[in-house]
């Protein structure tokens, strides 16, 4: 009896959450990111996506969740050059951080066709090059696993009333995308203009030497550039376009929280941030490079890294 009452209250809470519009918390001058018309933001969808993000049942043997590689303490990067998949396949490219990922015009290191987080979700979960979470051909298994959890059934019903709470890879990707869009980071010392003298000097140098590509509020022009020597092991953008001019071109990464998202570059080959700067071939002196590094350190948003709204959810089944 008590159990039924609790369930009824939980259902009411979920229903109320559906009606709650999503409210972006953004600094003055920052517009909300683009959101696909077919997947509007809602608090309950974000909560569902957060739960899924940390759920290793999205991998074939239950050992790997999105959060296995995207660790909050590293601004949702990984800390390794690359990361092997569930079957031990070697990882190919470095795990990027996720701060402000909603504003990025394309996703992944070298595929301009992937422009929504909904599309991107299937790459690690279902992809084969390389195998990461190993669920290729296992979409029904995802439905099976999630559907046997009463909490998930309630969450999906609340988050996707227009889909009648359908639990499938489409809904999973939509919820994951919503959660990742909520990962907003605009509270670094550089945002608050609380830079050290070294960081302040570094900002001017950065504007001169780096900002032509690392441009805008997320420090990326969204374009693809060849910075490192070409390698036959990873041809970058050319792998999807077939154009020789795209050999070795990779997307300019965002520099939000860059000091904690190493190792750096698409293959994680730069073990230190200083090494990463050097590999760009800039003409900075050692002293100037230290100043730029001071500025890059000031792009770390500690409130984002510690934000409980992005952390592993409690075991309970509550939603906003």
């Amino acid at each position: 009896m008590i159990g039924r009452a609790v369930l009824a209250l939980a259902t009411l809470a979920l229903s109320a959450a559906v009606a709650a519009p999503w409210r972006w918390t953004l600094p003055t001058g920052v517009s909300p990111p683009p959101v696909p018309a077919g997947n509007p933001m809602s608090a309950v969808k974000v909560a569902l996506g957060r739960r899924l993000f940390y759920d290793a049942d999205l991998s074939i043997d239950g050992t790997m969740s999105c959060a296995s590689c995207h660790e909050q303490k590293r601004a949702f990067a990984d800390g390794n050059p690359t990361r092997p998949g569930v079957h031990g396949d070697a990882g190919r490219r470095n795990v990027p951080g996720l701060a402000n990922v909603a504003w990025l015009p394309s996703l992944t290191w070298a595929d301009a066709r992937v422009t929504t987080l909904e599309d991107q979700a299937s790459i690690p979960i279902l992809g084969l090059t390389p195998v990461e979470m190993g669920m290729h051909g296992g979409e029904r298994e995802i439905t099976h696993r999630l559907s046997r959890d009463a909490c998930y059934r309630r969450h999906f019903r609340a988050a996707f009333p227009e889909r009648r709470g359908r639990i499938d890879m489409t809904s999973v990707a939509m919820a994951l995308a919503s959660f990742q869009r909520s990962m907003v980071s605009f509270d670094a010392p550089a945002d608050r203009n609380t830079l050290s003298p070294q960081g302040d000097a570094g900002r001017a140098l950065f504007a001169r030497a780096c900002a032509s590509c690392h441009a805008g509020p997320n420090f990326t022009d969204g374009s693809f550039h060849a910075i490192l020597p070409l390698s036959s092991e990873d041809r970058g953008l050319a792998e999807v376009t077939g154009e020789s001019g795209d050999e070795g071109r990779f997307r300019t990464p965002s520099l939000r929280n860059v000091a904690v998202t190493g190792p750096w570059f698409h293959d994680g080959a730069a073990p230190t941030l200083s090494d990463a700067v050097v590999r760009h071939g800039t003409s900075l002196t050692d002293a100037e490079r230290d100043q730029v590094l001071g500025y890059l350190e000031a792009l770390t948003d500690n409130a984002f890294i510690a934000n409980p709204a992005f952390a592993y959810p409690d075991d309970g089944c509550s939603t906003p």
Partner: protein
Amino acid sequence: MFNALFAAMLMQATAAAHTTCPAIAPPPAELSGWTSPRPLAAGRTATRATELTPGAAVAARLPSTRDVRYVVRPEKPGGSVSHGGLFTFTVTAPGRYRVALGSGAWIDVLANGKPATSVAHGHGPDCTGIRKMVDFDLGAGRYILQVAGNGSANLPLMVAKLPA
């Protein structure tokens, strides 16, 4: 002498690591017991945690994660289709202890219900079947070892004291 249980464990571990091994390599001296594991079923709760003896390897049989009640929620607990379990071991001689695993499962060593902080971690030597090693500085006492998010119900496992 490598026993049959160890050979099966090694095949599983090397397959998971995509390592090509022309021959089985001996483990480091401090883990010499690794090649002679005895079967052991993991516990599902702290009160039913099964006993490990430092220096002796086990071929652990792990229950489903759904059936395990961890003392502290693991940082990476694994999905419902994964496996985990609880063990206990006693330290009589304080020092640095190594937990060696045949997989990349998450582990916690708990003292009085709180996770001990690891001091080092890394991969095991190639072709030994040791996939992961985590070191802890431990005082005398009784500890709980939580294993979480293992992809298989089988896990080669060992706790060993390292030379001072």
